[in-house]
């Protein structure tokens, strides 16, 4: 056992004995329901007994689990002297923008609400857009039915840690048959005033409902102090419901973040998950969708753009539990500087799931000599009535394309910028209007010098 692992063990052990920290995260500790206390206790036990992920297993071959072991006790966040709940300067423009647009949103910074707005129509519709702690009070039955169901206590050591210790949470719940036209926007911002945060997000779409949910994970762009995040996102898409989920990851470049996402899609449900991954020093994301009902569909579109010494490790799982289900994945990676990307993707079609279709494509574009890309697209197919393909490519910019553009009078650097922008544009196109420019801007900043 590593030194760090031992430390986590003793620290979380201390967490049990103090007992206080757990309840302190609730807004009103007296109302902590019994089931939640038990769920956290179970998760804590699992966290203490589970081993750190095995690096022999290839999902952790490229990232060191110790990066995500909390440097401090989870229940004793080190308050590095800043006043909590204050809106940091770097976040102000984005919040201002949101408030001006009158978009339904909930913005949290270091676990505190810094801005929220729900148009009157949404308030009366039964849609919940609140902190998870508040959601437990207002929608207790719903939270109880879904919390920890997709990323539960036995999922893994880090995921159990999250379930035991989350202190920042968001609940988005859309009632049956309701179609939310405006995207619901969430901002989860953290800075280094807390060395470690556990963040838990839950999105539940009841049957025949539809919504677009945008999640921005933001960090201080000029951060000089290290921080660690453990984020879990659970998503349930009910029968016939449709969710478009966009995640913009732009954490500080001193952040070690572990992100676990599981979506469950019921009969004839549809989930489109869009991920744009830009920030973080060391980020490991495990993103999965389980197709549980016949006719369920999922589409994953992702872009990762890393520079300097960033390390981005993305894993996707598409599990077909039911027949006639479809999954489609398109993940693009651009690397410059000494950045490194590892992508591992799995499509698994179970024995009792005939007539499935699954596609997976991973393309890696290397802009610098010292960049490194690893790709492991995997298939596990247990039945014969399937159509399943995957493809992966790694390479640098096609010089023929550069030559063509230069022959039209476009200078070399500009030609390369255009080609990279074109490589990403297909993905950016399907991002909702509210976020598209912002993502283009993030990509453009990175292409401006290479």
């Amino acid at each position, binding site marked *: 056992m590593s030194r760090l692992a031992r430390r986590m063990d003793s620290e979380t052990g201390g967490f049990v004995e103090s007992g206080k920290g757990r309840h302190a995260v609730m807004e009103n500790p007296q109302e902590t329901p019994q089931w939640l206390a038990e769920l956290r206790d179970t998760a804590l036990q699992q966290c203490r007994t589970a081993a750190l992920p095995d690096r022999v297993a290839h999902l952790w071959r490229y990232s060191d689990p110790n990066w995500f072991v909390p440097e401090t006790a989870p229940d004793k966040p080190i308050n590095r002297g800043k006043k909590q709940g204050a809106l940091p300067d770097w976040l102000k423009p984005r919040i201002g923008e949101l408030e001006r647009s009158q978009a339904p949103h909930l913005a949290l910074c270091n676990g505190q609400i810094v801005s929220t707005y729900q148009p009157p129509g949404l308030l009366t519709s039964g849609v919940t857009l609140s902190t998870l702690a508040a959601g437990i009070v207002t929608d207790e039955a719903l939270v109880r039915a879904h919390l920890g169901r997709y990323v539960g206590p036995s999922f893994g050591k880090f995921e159990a840690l999250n379930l035991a210790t989350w202190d920042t949470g968001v609940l988005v719940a859309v009632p049956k048959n309701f179609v939310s036209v405006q995207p619901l926007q969430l901002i989860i911002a953290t800075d280094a005033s807390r060395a470690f945060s556990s963040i838990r997000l839950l999105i539940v779409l009841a049957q025949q409902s539809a919504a677009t949910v945008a999640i921005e994970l933001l960090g201080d762009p000029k951060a000089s102090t290290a921080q660690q995040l453990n984020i879990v996102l659970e998503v349930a898409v009910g029968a016939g419901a449709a969710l478009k989920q966009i995640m913009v990851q732009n954490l500080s470049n001193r952040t070690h973040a572990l992100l676990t996402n599981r979506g469950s899609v019921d009969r004839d449900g549809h989930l489109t998950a869009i991920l744009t991954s830009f920030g973080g020093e060391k980020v490991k994301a495990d993103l999965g969708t389980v197709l549980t009902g016949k006719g369920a569909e999922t589409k994953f579109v992702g872009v990762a753009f890393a520079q300097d010494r960033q390390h981005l490790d993305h894993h996707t799982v598409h599990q077909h539990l039911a027949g006639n289900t479809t999954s489609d994945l398109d993940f693009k990676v651009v690397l410059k500087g000494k950045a490194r990307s590892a992508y591992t993707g799995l499509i698994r079609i179970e024995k009792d799931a005939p007539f499935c279709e699954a596609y997976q494509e991973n393309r890696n574009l*290397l*802009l610098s*000599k010292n960049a490194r890309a690893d790709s492991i697209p995997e*298939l596990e197919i247990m039945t*014969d009535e399937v159509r399943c393909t995957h*493809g992966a*490519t*790694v390479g*640098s910019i096609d010089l023929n394309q550069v030559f063509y553009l230069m022959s039209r009078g476009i200078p070399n650097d500009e030609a390369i910028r255009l080609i990279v922008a074109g490589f990403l544009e297909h993905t950016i196109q399907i991002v909702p209007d509210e976020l598209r420019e912002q993502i283009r801007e993030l990509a453009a900043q990175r292409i401006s010098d290479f």
Partner: protein
Amino acid sequence: MNETLPVELKRQPDIAAIGTDYEAKYGFKDPAEYFHKGRKGVDHEVVEMISRMKNEPDWMRDFRHQSLDIFLRKPMPTWGNTELLNQINFDEIYYYVKPTEASSGNWDDVPDYIKNTFDRLGIPEAERKFLAGVSAQYESEVVYHSMKEELVKQGILFTDMDSGLREHPEIVKKFFATVIPPTDNKFAALNSAVWSGGSFIYIPPGVHVDIPLQAYFRINMENMGQFERTLIIADKGARVHYIEGCTAPVYSTNSLHSAVVELIALEGAYIRYTTIQNWANNIYNLVTKRAVAHKHATVEWVDGNIGSKLTMKFPCIYLMDEGAHGEILSVAFAGTGQHQDAGAKVIHAAPNTTSTITSKSISKDKGRASYRGMVKVYPGATGSKVAVECDALLIGKEARSDTYPTMEIDEKDVSIEHEARVSKVGDEQIFYLMSRGLTEAQARLMIVNGFIEPFVKELPMEYAVELNRLIEMEMEGSIG
């Protein structure tokens, strides 16, 4: 109606009748009259005994003992089909069985029961027809060996590995275990400790061997472990094509085949290594095969996996110098009770190196076929090009296919492509062929044959015919 059928289908009278003849054709057992049969299990005493019986130099004996220590120290692999792997009982295996006193260059000197075996397998016939040299291994030792006169005159060395060590110690010592050290994996360590037999080939600079050299490996005994060791060196500008085949009788208990094969292609050389593995379904086939290709050299692995209970075999090519080229072409057929865990590895360690991997797998009934691959490009290997293509065909609701490719790319100026497809035989394809007068079985077979065509066309004619026949056998009863 028969008039419209393609020739190859016409000569198949009744497809449903074909098959179940592995037992008849390859599954026969010989009465054992062994010259020496060691005891079960492996320890330093057994290793010492093998080395003494072979009268080996000290360096090889030390190498064996060191390898055994590595084997005993190394844990079993924790990846792959661990459930099957952990069923191997290393104490229940015979590690060294010597059927005859000495290898022979004259077919008449081979004991009758062994001669009958290879006669039934068609080896002497094949030798007369199209081979430049033949080596036949029975249990642990090569019992028959011959090579055409003119090849001997050109300075080509083709012997069993033991004779190679005795007669050409300077070449063996220089290259042996340089490509696959005993520390590579547990089974390579085991082979290094108890190896016996296998082929040793050296082709002098500039010599082209235009017709293939062949080795045939036969396991006859129950609970047998066969650990042949093959080393092929093609000197500058030399060319060689080597073929191996393997079969065994069907027993209720399992046997272990764990070979180590090292290929070295020096500057401008060309080596093609063809295997058609048709072990009985009680054999664990855990083989380490690796090649090194130097400047402008080419190495090709043509790898067919039809038999065995569990095969774990990932032919590998290290492209060490500029302009080296590697090609791996593999076919796996997994029926019920079989797991073909096959694949390919290519390591690009120099600029302007190229490689292609083509893998075709067929999983039928409860069979499982996996492709496990690795493509690695080291920094500085600019201009490297890799193309990987994996196709899998599933026949039956419970058939399973896995694809586990790994790509580790440390260089920007490269072109790496990987593609895989998994599907079943299309109903519309069957329907189309049936509308042209084929029966369903004929249509299905034709589609399967078409699927593996890129592989079959790389085989020498006789092997292609044999492989097609094997596929027919395996496809028997696949309707519905």
